[in-house]
């Protein structure tokens, strides 16, 4: 069996789950296995939607996320025996899949760009060295694999309805969630966004980010921030792009008032197109840019917003 972890937002499956399904089906075909899904609920789980994609759907009502509970739920679903477990890559999955991989003594292939099977072995490509190097790796089954978002076509429903199996969950209570600090969700999530507009220290303060938000919204994208901006308290950590933040790979990355430190580049250097606006023509970011404007971001950004609006009209 190939087991796929179906991540959801309490309403519908995430796009990244449909990518993970595509990968799981490809491995299943090559290894001569079936595909089962596991839906770990917090809030309303999209059971009806999810069962349209798999032959068997394991469902567990686990309450708030902890790595222990999620790992226990997945291991319960894997009891029937698995050749591979596939999950969309996220901070959470890269933690609980570490537990799952250890429990199964499995080969862990993290944040993979592509994956395939040859003979009985599973191969994958992934980035290493802060996104600067591409690795080709392999492991014999069982394999635990996470799928980097925006790398894989989305799976189509099967056209039939899968069987739903409720999972018994062993009690795990070592972590108690006291308080969820929800950040206001605006538009698409940073790691899945096809356009990311990031502000750097050159923005000068939190007030200027209203216009960053406006440009991101106009382009259907997400707002990012650099470490300096987050350290200054202008934006939350969840928006940080870079080595100590999130890694993004959108079609369009717009860096506003960003100098281009190595740690920041590590989080965005695989973007398809990089645009930089900075008043310093010597800023390292320009060496990594496809397009750029040497100019004052406080004058260029409002002009960019107007120009995009004009294009949309």
């Amino acid at each position, binding site marked *: 069996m190939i087991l796929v972890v179906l991540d959801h937002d309490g309403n519908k499956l995430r796009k990244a789950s449909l990518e993970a399904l595509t990968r799981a089906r490809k491995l299943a075909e090559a290894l001569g296995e079936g595909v089962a899904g596991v839906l770990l609920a917090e809030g309303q789980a999209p059971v009806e939607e999810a069962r349209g994609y798999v032959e068997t759907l394991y469902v567990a009502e686990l309450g708030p996320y902890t790595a222990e509970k999620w790992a226990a739920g997945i291991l319960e679903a894997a009891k029937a025996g698995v050749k591979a477990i596939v999950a969309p890559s996220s901070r959470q999955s890269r933690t609980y899949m570490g537990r799952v*991989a*250890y429990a199964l003594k*499995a080969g862990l292939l993290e944040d993979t760009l592509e994956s395939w099977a040859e003979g009985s072995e599973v191969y994958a490509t992934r980035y*290493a060295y802060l996104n600067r190097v591409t690795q080709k790796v392999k492991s014999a089954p069982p394999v635990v694999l996470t799928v980097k978002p925006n790398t894989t076509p989305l799976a189509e429903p099967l056209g039939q309805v899968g069987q739903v199996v409720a999972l018994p969950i062993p009690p795990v209570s070592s972590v*108690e969630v006291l308080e969820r600090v929800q950040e206001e969700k605006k538009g698409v999530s940073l790691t899945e966004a096809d356009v990311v507009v990031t502000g750097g220290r050159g923005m000068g303060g939190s007030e200027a980010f209203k216009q960053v938000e406006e440009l991101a919204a106009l382009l259907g994208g997400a707002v990012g921030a650099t470490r300096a901006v987050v350290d200054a308290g202008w934006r939350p950590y969840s928006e940080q792009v870079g080595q100590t933040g999130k890694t993004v790979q959108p079609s369009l990355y717009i860096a506003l008032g960003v100098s281009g430190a190595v740690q920041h580049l590590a989080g965005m250097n695989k973007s398809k197109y990089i645009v930089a606006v900075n008043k310093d023509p010597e800023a390292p970011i320009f060496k990594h840019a*496809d*397009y750029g*404007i040497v100019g004052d971001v406080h004058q260029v950004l409002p002009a960019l917003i107007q120009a995009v609006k004009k294009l949309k009209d």
Partner: protein
Amino acid sequence: MKFVAVIRQVPDGESRLRIQGDRVDLSGATLILDQMDEYGVEEALRLKEKHGGEAIVVGFGPERTEEAIRTALAMGMDRGIHVVYEGYADPVTVAEALAPILKEESPTLILTGGQQADWDSQALGGALAEALDVPVVAWTTALELEGETARAKHDLDEGAEWVRVRLPAVFTTQQGLNEPRYPTLPGIMKAKKKEIKKVAFQGASRVEILQESIQEKTRLQKILDGKDPVAAAEELVRLLHEEAKVI
């Protein structure tokens, strides 16, 4: 109380990487204590300063990893343990190597970096926690001891949360948790005399690296003059729409 920081030695992010025979060659790179692990070392030192006890650094990697262990000792860690292993090992294998040592030490808590700067893995914390059958809190930005438990704040993909966790537990660290101190000259002198226990590990990695390559994408480098911001912005939007076709 006993606080353990698990560390590795990695190339500095500014270092030039070369490929030699299909693999990354680090012979010309500057190697440092992983900056993500540095937050763990600092936190172990702060916890010891506040609650007393001992702070131990445990390093995994080839002989040269001793330099990174010495750096942690120079920051103030009391003693070091070095699990010597040449080459690549996946996080499950690293956790297998470290588990017997950590079980023997029986620490109050264990800290390690949220992501490794060489293998870009985020799984060591989870794998270690499973190996020790303890909870894990990933991407921690605040940590306080409260008797048999700890209160911690950590980041999720969206937002953050406060949790109470039973100890012992594994915490993965990141920026925001603290500001790591620099080793002082007396610290460096003292570190030379501190004990580093060497442990050999014979296991083999389950995951094998077959090939590594560096593909620097050639960027178009079309940089416009922004003296006239309106004209420059309009030209940029035109290029993104008509040439790159991304908006």
